[in-house]
Protein backbone atom coordinates (compact mmCIF):
# COMPACT_ATOMS: atom_id res chain seq x y z
CA UNK A 1 0.00 0.00 0.00
CA UNK A 2 1.42 3.38 -0.94
CA UNK A 3 1.58 6.23 1.53
CA UNK A 4 -1.22 8.18 -0.15
CA UNK A 5 -3.44 5.09 -0.07
CA UNK A 6 -2.74 4.74 3.64
CA UNK A 7 -3.62 8.38 4.24
CA UNK A 8 -6.86 7.95 2.31
CA UNK A 9 -8.01 5.18 4.64
CA UNK A 10 -9.89 6.31 7.76
CA UNK A 11 -7.30 7.00 10.45
CA UNK A 12 -7.48 4.83 13.55
CA UNK A 13 -8.26 6.48 16.88
CA UNK A 14 -4.75 5.94 18.25
CA UNK A 15 -3.37 8.13 15.45
CA UNK A 16 -6.06 10.80 15.41
CA UNK A 17 -6.55 11.17 19.17
CA UNK A 18 -2.90 11.98 20.00
CA UNK A 19 -2.76 14.42 17.05
CA UNK A 20 -5.84 16.22 18.39
CA UNK A 21 -4.28 16.20 21.87
CA UNK A 22 -1.12 17.84 20.51
CA UNK A 23 -3.21 20.88 19.59
CA UNK A 24 -3.23 21.77 23.31
CA UNK A 25 0.55 22.31 23.71
CA UNK A 26 0.87 23.70 20.17
CA UNK A 27 -1.57 26.55 20.84
CA UNK A 28 -0.04 27.22 24.25
CA UNK A 29 3.50 27.35 22.92
CA UNK A 30 2.87 29.39 19.77
CA UNK A 31 0.90 32.09 21.57
CA UNK A 32 -0.36 31.26 25.08
CA UNK A 33 -3.79 30.33 23.73
CA UNK A 34 -6.19 27.98 25.49
CA UNK A 35 -7.69 25.43 23.12
CA UNK A 36 -11.39 26.12 22.62
CA UNK A 37 -13.65 26.29 19.60
CA UNK A 38 -17.15 27.23 20.71
CA UNK A 39 -15.87 30.67 21.75
CA UNK A 40 -15.67 31.48 18.04
CA UNK A 41 -19.48 31.57 18.02
CA UNK A 42 -19.41 34.13 20.82
CA UNK A 43 -16.82 36.23 19.02
CA UNK A 44 -19.04 36.18 15.94
CA UNK A 45 -21.92 37.54 18.01
CA UNK A 46 -19.66 40.15 19.62
CA UNK A 47 -18.35 41.26 16.23
CA UNK A 48 -21.60 41.22 14.23
CA UNK A 49 -24.59 41.74 16.53
CA UNK A 50 -23.49 42.71 20.03
CA UNK A 51 -26.66 44.75 20.70
CA UNK A 52 -26.44 46.19 24.19
CA UNK A 53 -25.77 42.78 25.68
CA UNK A 54 -22.98 42.86 28.29
CA UNK A 55 -21.96 39.29 27.44
CA UNK A 56 -20.88 40.50 24.01
CA UNK A 57 -19.15 43.71 25.11
CA UNK A 58 -15.47 42.88 25.00
CA UNK A 59 -12.53 43.37 22.72
CA UNK A 60 -13.23 40.57 20.25
CA UNK A 61 -10.36 41.75 18.05
CA UNK A 62 -8.00 40.37 20.69
CA UNK A 63 -9.54 36.96 20.04
CA UNK A 64 -9.10 37.10 16.29
CA UNK A 65 -6.69 34.18 16.50
CA UNK A 66 -9.69 31.96 17.32
CA UNK A 67 -11.45 33.01 14.11
CA UNK A 68 -8.31 32.20 12.09
CA UNK A 69 -8.23 28.82 13.82
CA UNK A 70 -11.83 27.91 12.89
CA UNK A 71 -11.30 29.25 9.36
CA UNK A 72 -8.38 26.84 9.21
CA UNK A 73 -10.66 23.96 10.27
CA UNK A 74 -12.97 24.92 7.39
CA UNK A 75 -10.04 24.92 4.91
CA UNK A 76 -8.84 21.63 6.40
CA UNK A 77 -12.25 20.16 5.56
CA UNK A 78 -11.92 21.40 1.96
CA UNK A 79 -8.41 19.97 1.58
CA UNK A 80 -9.31 16.62 3.11
CA UNK A 81 -12.40 16.33 0.92
CA UNK A 82 -10.51 17.28 -2.25
CA UNK A 83 -7.38 15.18 -1.87
CA UNK A 84 -7.58 12.71 0.97
CA UNK A 85 -11.12 11.42 1.07
CA UNK A 86 -11.81 7.74 1.62
CA UNK A 87 -13.76 6.61 -1.47
CA UNK A 88 -15.72 4.01 0.50
CA UNK A 89 -18.76 4.69 2.69
CA UNK A 90 -18.17 4.93 6.43
CA UNK A 91 -18.11 1.52 8.11
CA UNK A 92 -20.36 1.49 11.14
CA UNK A 93 -21.84 -1.13 13.43
CA UNK A 94 -24.41 -3.38 11.66
CA UNK A 95 -27.00 -2.66 14.38
CA UNK A 96 -26.78 1.04 13.56
CA UNK A 97 -27.16 0.32 9.83
CA UNK A 98 -30.32 -1.68 10.56
CA UNK A 99 -31.74 0.94 12.90
CA UNK A 100 -31.12 3.80 10.45
CA UNK A 101 -32.64 1.79 7.58
CA UNK A 102 -35.89 1.90 9.55
CA UNK A 103 -35.81 5.71 9.31
CA UNK A 104 -35.06 5.68 5.60
CA UNK A 105 -31.37 6.49 6.05
CA UNK A 106 -29.41 4.32 3.64
CA UNK A 107 -26.79 6.67 2.16
CA UNK A 108 -23.56 6.25 4.14
CA UNK A 109 -21.35 8.01 1.60
CA UNK A 110 -21.08 11.42 3.27
CA UNK A 111 -19.98 12.60 6.70
CA UNK A 112 -23.59 13.54 7.39
CA UNK A 113 -26.52 11.44 6.12
CA UNK A 114 -27.80 13.09 2.96
CA UNK A 115 -31.22 11.59 3.64
CA UNK A 116 -31.57 14.03 6.56
CA UNK A 117 -29.05 16.85 6.15
CA UNK A 118 -29.66 18.37 2.73
CA UNK A 119 -31.21 21.54 1.32
CA UNK A 120 -34.22 19.61 0.06
CA UNK A 121 -34.88 18.23 3.56
CA UNK A 122 -34.46 21.58 5.30
CA UNK A 123 -38.14 22.49 5.27
CA UNK A 124 -39.46 19.12 6.37
CA UNK A 125 -40.33 18.73 10.06
CA UNK A 126 -37.45 16.31 10.54
CA UNK A 127 -34.92 18.45 8.70
CA UNK A 128 -35.97 21.60 10.51
CA UNK A 129 -35.66 19.97 13.94
CA UNK A 130 -32.35 18.29 13.15
CA UNK A 131 -30.57 21.19 11.46
CA UNK A 132 -32.12 24.31 12.96
CA UNK A 133 -33.05 23.17 16.46
CA UNK A 134 -30.02 20.90 16.71
CA UNK A 135 -27.70 23.77 15.85
CA UNK A 136 -29.45 26.06 18.30
CA UNK A 137 -28.98 23.54 21.13
CA UNK A 138 -25.28 23.24 20.27
CA UNK A 139 -24.74 27.01 20.35
CA UNK A 140 -26.87 27.67 23.41
CA UNK A 141 -25.60 24.66 25.35
CA UNK A 142 -21.89 25.14 24.73
CA UNK A 143 -21.99 28.76 25.83
CA UNK A 144 -24.17 27.98 28.86
CA UNK A 145 -21.69 25.24 29.81
CA UNK A 146 -18.76 27.57 29.09
CA UNK A 147 -17.16 25.34 26.50
CA UNK A 148 -17.53 22.34 24.23
CA UNK A 149 -15.67 19.11 23.65
CA UNK A 150 -12.43 20.95 22.91
CA UNK A 151 -12.58 23.51 25.71
CA UNK A 152 -13.96 21.31 28.47
CA UNK A 153 -13.31 17.67 27.58
CA UNK A 154 -9.84 18.12 26.12
CA UNK A 155 -8.36 21.41 27.44
CA UNK A 156 -10.28 21.39 30.75
CA UNK A 157 -9.56 17.81 31.75
CA UNK A 158 -5.94 18.12 30.53
CA UNK A 159 -5.48 20.92 33.07
CA UNK A 160 -7.22 18.79 35.75
CA UNK A 161 -10.23 21.00 36.28
CA UNK A 162 -13.09 19.13 37.88
CA UNK A 163 -15.82 21.50 36.58
CA UNK A 164 -14.77 20.44 33.07
CA UNK A 165 -15.15 16.81 34.04
CA UNK A 166 -18.67 17.57 35.27
CA UNK A 167 -19.45 19.35 32.01
CA UNK A 168 -18.05 16.45 29.94
CA UNK A 169 -20.15 13.92 31.87
CA UNK A 170 -23.22 16.07 31.17
CA UNK A 171 -22.38 16.27 27.45
CA UNK A 172 -22.26 12.47 27.35
CA UNK A 173 -25.41 12.04 29.47
CA UNK A 174 -27.35 14.47 27.25
CA UNK A 175 -26.10 12.69 24.14
CA UNK A 176 -27.08 9.26 25.48
CA UNK A 177 -30.58 10.43 26.37
CA UNK A 178 -31.10 12.10 23.03
CA UNK A 179 -29.62 9.37 20.80
CA UNK A 180 -31.36 6.46 22.51
CA UNK A 181 -34.69 7.85 23.70
CA UNK A 182 -35.65 11.03 21.84
CA UNK A 183 -33.87 10.95 18.48
CA UNK A 184 -35.72 7.76 17.35
CA UNK A 185 -38.97 9.77 17.47
CA UNK A 186 -37.46 12.70 15.58
CA UNK A 187 -35.95 10.41 12.93
CA UNK A 188 -39.33 8.70 12.47
CA UNK A 189 -41.02 11.99 11.51
Amino acid sequence: MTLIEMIRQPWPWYVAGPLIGLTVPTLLIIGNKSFGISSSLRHTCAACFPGKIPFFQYDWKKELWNMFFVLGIFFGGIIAAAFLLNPNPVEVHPNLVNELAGYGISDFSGLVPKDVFSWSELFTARGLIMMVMGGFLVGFGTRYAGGCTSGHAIMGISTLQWPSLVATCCFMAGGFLMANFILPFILSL
Partner: protein
Amino acid sequence: MANNTFVQNQPDTAANSDFEVRSLDTMCVNSEEYKEPWYGNLKYLVVGILFGIVFVKAEVISWFRIQEMFRLQSIHMYGVIGSAVAVGMLSVFLIKKFNIKTIHGEKIEFHPKKFNKGQIYGGLTFGFGWAITGACPGPLFAQIGTGATVIIVTLLSAIAGTWVYGKFREKLPH
Protein backbone atom coordinates in the same frame (compact mmCIF):
# COMPACT_ATOMS: atom_id res chain seq x y z
CA MET B 1 -8.40 19.62 45.35
CA ALA B 2 -6.00 18.46 42.71
CA ASN B 3 -6.77 21.39 40.46
CA ASN B 4 -5.53 23.92 42.99
CA THR B 5 -1.99 22.68 42.75
CA PHE B 6 -2.09 23.39 39.08
CA VAL B 7 -3.62 26.83 39.29
CA GLN B 8 -0.65 29.10 39.16
CA ASN B 9 -2.03 32.24 37.69
CA GLN B 10 -5.32 33.80 38.52
CA PRO B 11 -6.63 35.94 35.69
CA ASP B 12 -5.50 39.49 36.13
CA THR B 13 -8.70 41.28 37.05
CA ALA B 14 -7.22 44.73 36.69
CA ALA B 15 -6.07 44.16 33.13
CA ASN B 16 -9.36 42.69 31.97
CA SER B 17 -12.15 45.21 32.04
CA ASP B 18 -14.44 42.47 30.83
CA PHE B 19 -13.47 40.18 33.68
CA GLU B 20 -16.94 39.95 35.18
CA VAL B 21 -18.39 39.07 31.83
CA ARG B 22 -15.91 36.27 31.55
CA SER B 23 -15.93 35.05 35.10
CA LEU B 24 -18.28 32.24 34.17
CA ASP B 25 -16.55 31.60 30.93
CA THR B 26 -12.81 31.48 30.95
CA MET B 27 -12.55 29.61 27.68
CA CYS B 28 -10.34 30.92 24.97
CA VAL B 29 -8.84 33.77 26.91
CA ASN B 30 -5.96 35.28 25.05
CA SER B 31 -3.18 35.47 27.64
CA GLU B 32 -0.53 36.72 25.33
CA GLU B 33 1.06 40.03 26.30
CA TYR B 34 3.15 40.26 23.17
CA LYS B 35 1.36 42.28 20.49
CA GLU B 36 1.62 40.49 17.22
CA PRO B 37 0.96 41.96 13.79
CA TRP B 38 -2.20 40.53 12.22
CA TYR B 39 -0.28 38.02 10.10
CA GLY B 40 0.85 36.34 13.32
CA ASN B 41 -2.64 34.86 13.25
CA LEU B 42 -1.71 32.83 10.18
CA LYS B 43 -0.03 30.38 12.58
CA TYR B 44 -3.46 29.52 13.95
CA LEU B 45 -4.82 29.16 10.44
CA VAL B 46 -2.17 26.50 9.76
CA VAL B 47 -2.87 24.67 13.03
CA GLY B 48 -6.59 24.84 12.19
CA ILE B 49 -6.02 23.34 8.73
CA LEU B 50 -4.07 20.40 10.15
CA PHE B 51 -6.67 19.96 12.86
CA GLY B 52 -9.50 20.04 10.28
CA ILE B 53 -7.78 17.35 8.19
CA VAL B 54 -7.46 15.09 11.25
CA PHE B 55 -11.15 15.70 12.01
CA VAL B 56 -12.18 14.49 8.57
CA LYS B 57 -9.73 11.62 8.33
CA ALA B 58 -10.57 10.20 11.75
CA GLU B 59 -14.30 10.51 10.94
CA VAL B 60 -14.89 12.33 14.24
CA ILE B 61 -17.04 14.76 12.28
CA SER B 62 -19.15 11.90 10.93
CA TRP B 63 -22.74 11.95 12.15
CA PHE B 64 -22.70 8.14 11.93
CA ARG B 65 -19.69 7.86 14.25
CA ILE B 66 -21.37 10.07 16.84
CA GLN B 67 -24.50 7.89 16.72
CA GLU B 68 -22.30 4.82 17.26
CA MET B 69 -20.62 6.48 20.22
CA PHE B 70 -23.88 7.30 22.00
CA ARG B 71 -25.17 3.76 21.36
CA LEU B 72 -21.95 2.20 22.72
CA GLN B 73 -21.46 0.39 19.43
CA SER B 74 -17.85 1.37 18.83
CA ILE B 75 -14.75 2.28 20.77
CA HIS B 76 -13.58 4.70 18.06
CA MET B 77 -14.77 8.04 19.48
CA TYR B 78 -13.89 7.09 23.05
CA GLY B 79 -10.42 6.17 21.84
CA VAL B 80 -10.04 9.50 20.02
CA ILE B 81 -11.22 11.65 22.94
CA GLY B 82 -9.47 9.52 25.56
CA SER B 83 -6.09 9.53 23.83
CA ALA B 84 -6.43 13.25 23.03
CA VAL B 85 -7.00 13.96 26.72
CA ALA B 86 -4.07 11.72 27.70
CA VAL B 87 -1.70 13.51 25.34
CA GLY B 88 -3.05 16.92 26.39
CA MET B 89 -2.61 16.07 30.06
CA LEU B 90 0.93 14.83 29.57
CA SER B 91 1.88 17.95 27.59
CA VAL B 92 0.42 20.28 30.19
CA PHE B 93 2.31 18.36 32.88
CA LEU B 94 5.58 18.71 30.93
CA ILE B 95 4.98 22.41 30.25
CA LYS B 96 4.56 23.00 33.98
CA LYS B 97 7.37 20.73 35.09
CA PHE B 98 9.96 22.23 32.75
CA ASN B 99 8.44 25.69 32.83
CA ILE B 100 8.31 25.78 29.03
CA LYS B 101 7.81 29.27 27.61
CA THR B 102 5.96 30.42 24.51
CA ILE B 103 7.92 31.15 21.34
CA HIS B 104 7.88 34.80 22.44
CA GLY B 105 9.40 33.88 25.80
CA GLU B 106 6.25 34.37 27.87
CA LYS B 107 5.20 32.21 30.77
CA ILE B 108 2.38 29.89 29.74
CA GLU B 109 -0.79 30.58 31.67
CA PHE B 110 -3.63 28.32 32.68
CA HIS B 111 -7.05 29.58 33.61
CA PRO B 112 -9.02 27.98 36.40
CA LYS B 113 -12.64 27.24 35.62
CA LYS B 114 -15.12 27.89 38.38
CA PHE B 115 -17.93 25.48 38.86
CA ASN B 116 -21.44 26.74 38.17
CA LYS B 117 -24.71 25.00 37.42
CA GLY B 118 -24.43 26.11 33.81
CA GLN B 119 -21.95 23.32 33.28
CA ILE B 120 -24.75 20.87 34.14
CA TYR B 121 -27.73 22.50 32.36
CA GLY B 122 -25.67 23.76 29.45
CA GLY B 123 -23.76 20.49 29.27
CA LEU B 124 -26.96 18.48 28.95
CA THR B 125 -28.33 20.93 26.36
CA PHE B 126 -25.18 20.68 24.29
CA GLY B 127 -25.31 16.87 24.63
CA PHE B 128 -28.81 16.88 23.10
CA GLY B 129 -27.60 19.04 20.23
CA TRP B 130 -24.48 16.95 19.73
CA ALA B 131 -26.51 13.74 19.33
CA ILE B 132 -28.94 15.43 16.89
CA THR B 133 -26.44 17.22 14.66
CA GLY B 134 -23.58 14.77 15.13
CA ALA B 135 -21.29 17.74 15.55
CA CYS B 136 -19.76 19.97 18.16
CA PRO B 137 -18.84 23.49 17.03
CA GLY B 138 -15.46 22.51 15.52
CA PRO B 139 -16.82 19.75 13.29
CA LEU B 140 -19.50 22.11 11.96
CA PHE B 141 -16.79 24.16 10.25
CA ALA B 142 -15.10 21.04 8.87
CA GLN B 143 -18.39 19.54 7.65
CA ILE B 144 -19.13 22.70 5.67
CA GLY B 145 -15.61 22.50 4.23
CA THR B 146 -16.17 18.97 3.00
CA GLY B 147 -19.08 20.22 0.92
CA ALA B 148 -22.11 19.70 3.17
CA THR B 149 -23.21 23.29 2.52
CA VAL B 150 -26.55 22.89 4.29
CA ILE B 151 -24.62 22.71 7.58
CA ILE B 152 -24.23 26.50 7.18
CA VAL B 153 -27.83 26.60 8.44
CA THR B 154 -26.83 24.57 11.51
CA LEU B 155 -23.86 26.87 12.13
CA LEU B 156 -26.00 30.03 11.85
CA SER B 157 -28.47 28.42 14.21
CA ALA B 158 -25.65 27.70 16.67
CA ILE B 159 -24.59 31.35 16.49
CA ALA B 160 -28.21 32.31 17.17
CA GLY B 161 -28.22 29.93 20.15
CA THR B 162 -25.10 31.58 21.54
CA TRP B 163 -26.68 35.01 21.07
CA VAL B 164 -29.89 33.98 22.85
CA TYR B 165 -27.81 32.62 25.73
CA GLY B 166 -25.97 35.95 25.96
CA LYS B 167 -29.25 37.85 25.89
CA PHE B 168 -30.92 35.87 28.69
CA ARG B 169 -27.81 34.96 30.61
CA GLU B 170 -28.73 36.93 33.73
CA LYS B 171 -32.11 35.19 33.97
CA LEU B 172 -30.70 31.68 33.72
CA PRO B 173 -29.64 29.67 36.77
CA HIS B 174 -25.86 29.47 37.16
